[in-house]
């Protein structure tokens, strides 16, 4: 999704207006240009890096595809290995070098390349690059797509900053439809509005509201008792989910304007009965990427239980490292690796009390929330301090109301939060039972219900949204990756 600002929305409106008024043959190139302009507007540095890497990706893709088709499979695999290695190296350099630089005591003024910084959205971008190159090598990309198509796939602006990590074989075939899409298509607009409004509700009303208190609790945890610190951990779980899922829904809605369908990235993950199910429902594009390009090539579950557990731990370590260079992310990744390993063992031992039903869901939510503390805190050390305070400071009964006041939580806000959380639970539960994401439920309902939902969501957004001069809702958590 683009950054959620008035200017981004105006940019989107302008792009849409021009898109539907130019010649059909120019549409794809126009969308590529719009995407590049957007990335360059975010940061010239990011634009330059992304453009270079995209061009190199296309060139490598052509080379690999050419080698494969001419029967040089091993050479194609070798070139793929080189290209993927360079991609991974670039990610490591951009992500980890700025962190390691101070430790290496290097003089930036003499060596300009030392001023490397992670281009915005690079982590998502490079995973798409890797998946594209590997798929070309594996012949999953049969058709040779042109320069413009491949670059559009890599740089598509609604998904550029924070994914979903689209696969080439899902995205590229849709480009042909883009040339023919018409503006007045009621069913498509129903989908656009359902996804976009639900996304805004999740992000601007719930996530950003929770974020206000999470920030205070995590940054000043020494000032609060265990009760509020536990609430802080809970609210962060809600924040990160609603932030990321909300953004993903908005990206899907925006892409639908141009008749491009993006991958669903979340399927009610907090209602999962066990951690394995959780990772099939949380950040689906990332977990499926890790499964297809790391877990399975490592052997997956085909080499016995011990190797399976080792592979799982390694995958989650990489997952943690992908999120960031901080110690908190590494610990978070390892914890999920451990959770998955324990889940594998529980399944083997048929110990299902904490893998199914109500208790399974409670247990899964609690362990995921606990791990989020490491994800949110500024470091693993800070997370440990937070957890220590949470469990040892205790519940200061008379302090609860005073601490609520210092958090800025008055009666109004508590009621608002409770109603919003209850609404979220109802929506998620309905979606879980009906096996469809919330926006899809809305989209498939009767148009009167859809209109009423749109009215309610927009009204709630206008009044209760966290936007305006006192708030900064435009930044999404996953933007930093």
């Amino acid at each position: 999704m683009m950054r959620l600002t008035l200017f981004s929305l105006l940019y989107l409106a302008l792009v849409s207006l021009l898109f539907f008024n130019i010649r059909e043959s120019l549409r794809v190139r126009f969308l590529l240009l719009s995407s590049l302009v957007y990335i360059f507007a975010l940061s010239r540095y990011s634009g330059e890096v992304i453009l270079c890497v995209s061009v190199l990706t296309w060139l490598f893709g052509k080379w690999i595809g050419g080698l494969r088709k001419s029967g040089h499979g091993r050479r194609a695999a070798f070139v793929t290995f080189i290209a993927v290695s360079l991609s991974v190296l670039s990610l490591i350099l951009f992500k980890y070098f700025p962190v390691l630089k101070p430790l290496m005591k290097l003089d930036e003024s003499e060596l300009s390349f030392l001023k490397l910084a992670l281009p915005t959205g690079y982590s998502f971008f490079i995973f798409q690059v890797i998946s594209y190159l590997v798929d070309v090598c594996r012949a999953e990309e049969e058709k040779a797509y042109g320069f413009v198509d491949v670059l559009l796939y890599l740089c598509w602006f609604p998904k550029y900053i924070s994914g979903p990590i689209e696969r080439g074989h899902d995205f590229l075939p849709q480009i042909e439809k883009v040339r023919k899409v018409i503006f007045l298509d009621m069913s498509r607009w129903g989908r656009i509005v359902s996804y976009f409004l639900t996304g805004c509700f999740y992000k601007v009303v719930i996530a950003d509201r929770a974020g206000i208190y999470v920030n205070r609790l995590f940054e000043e945890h020494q000032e609060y008792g265990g009760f509020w610190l536990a609430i802080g951990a809970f609210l962060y779980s809600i924040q990160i989910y609603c932030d990321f899922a909300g953004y993903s829904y908005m990206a899907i809605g925006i892409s639908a304007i141009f008749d491009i369908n993006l991958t669903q990235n979340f399927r009610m993950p907090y209602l999962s009965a066990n951690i394995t199910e959780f990772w099939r429902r949380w950040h689906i594009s990332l977990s499926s990427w890790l499964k297809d390009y790391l877990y399975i090539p490592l052997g997956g579950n085909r080499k016995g239980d011990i190797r399976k557990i080792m592979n799982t731990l390694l995958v989650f370590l990489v997952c943690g490292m992908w999120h960031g260079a901080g110690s908190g992310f590494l610990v978070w990744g390892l914890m999920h690796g451990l959770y998955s390993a324990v889940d594998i063992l529980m399944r083997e031992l048929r110990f299902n009390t904490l893998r199914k039903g109500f208790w399974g869901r409670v247990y899964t939510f609690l362990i995921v929330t606990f791990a989020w503390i490491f994800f949110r805190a500024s470091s693993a050390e800070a997370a440990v301090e937070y957890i220590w305070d949470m469990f040892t400071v205790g519940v200061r009964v008379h302090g609860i109301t005073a601490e609520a006041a210092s958090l800025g939580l008055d009666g109004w806000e508590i009621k608002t939060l409770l109603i919003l959380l209850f609404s979220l639970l109802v929506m998620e539960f309905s979606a879980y039972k009906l096996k469809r994401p919330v926006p899809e439920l809305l989209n498939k309902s009767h148009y009167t219900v859809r209109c009423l939902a749109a009215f309610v969501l927009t009204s709630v957004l206008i009044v209760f949204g966290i936007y305006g001069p006192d708030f900064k809702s435009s930044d999404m958590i996953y933007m930093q990756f």
Partner: protein
Amino acid sequence: MRNRYVKILVISVFAIMLVFFYFACDRVLSFKSTNGIRQARDMYAQPENSVDVVFMGSSHIHCDVNTALLWEEFGIASYDYSAAEQPLWTTYYYLLEICKYQDPHLVVLDLYSPARFKDDYQYDWLLDNLNGVRFSWNKLRMLYVSCQPDQMRKFFPSIATYHSRYRELTEEDWDYLTATRWERASFKGYTPYFYIDPQEEPVLKEKLSGGITVKSEIYLQKIIEYTEENGIDLFLMVSPYITVDEDELVYNRVHEIADRYGLHFNSTNYYYKNMDLDFDEDFNDHSHLNYGGSCKFSRYLGEELKKMYDIPDRRGLPKWESWDRHAVEIRQMAEDAGLTGF
């Protein structure tokens, strides 16, 4: 086919409901400050082409210019179309805005703001200057000239600045939801102060001129040219306050500009005795007159304006009945504050 029309009808009904909801939220949640927001908003409620004299400028206008007294004693149908610390560039766009709905004979412009505030972008009271103005191309230009691009999100759109006021709503907010145009029309911008803060009479000795910023001078000239092109008289003035030499520097410069364009200019700080202004009784603070002081100043001002300009007496005419209600309301406010006989 029939289903399609029913669908369009349902969608239209909900769209209209949403529009109504938005306007209701705007009415209830918006700030009701009398530092400029209400002055701007309720200008739109005035009967079309009924305002003969527009007073413009900073809070010196809506505190010092008693529109009720001007009506009762002189029959002048005036409106204080001002806002706190309003810079001249904002005043210029305010002038364009009021001329869309009114056909004033005279604009009276107070020059305190350009004398006292020298920054090219002034943010302290910008919200009060912007929020009452309706969305339009004029407002966008006002916004563009009033703040730097990276600050715009703090002021636009207006609803972003007050949508979270649901926690602090008062009876006044709910009353505004159902306030009719007729009810709102009795507000003429004037908001009297009732505090007494004795002041020391300033000694005016500055003879040099200058000190006005380039941006202020550009917009002063735009205002002068606009009024000239549209056949509107322009009177430049400084309403009474505890002035200082730096401010007088600017007023001397404005005097030069006024002379160049053949405009009347009155720095009333030279005429305290003519107004019978009492420095122990008539000031709310160093910058504003209180109710008593505003009555004295407005009486003086009314006499001067009547002498210099041909302003019609609208008393007794049905179209101007809102000024009668306005005068009653101001008198009531004064009585509630225990002040009568001004």
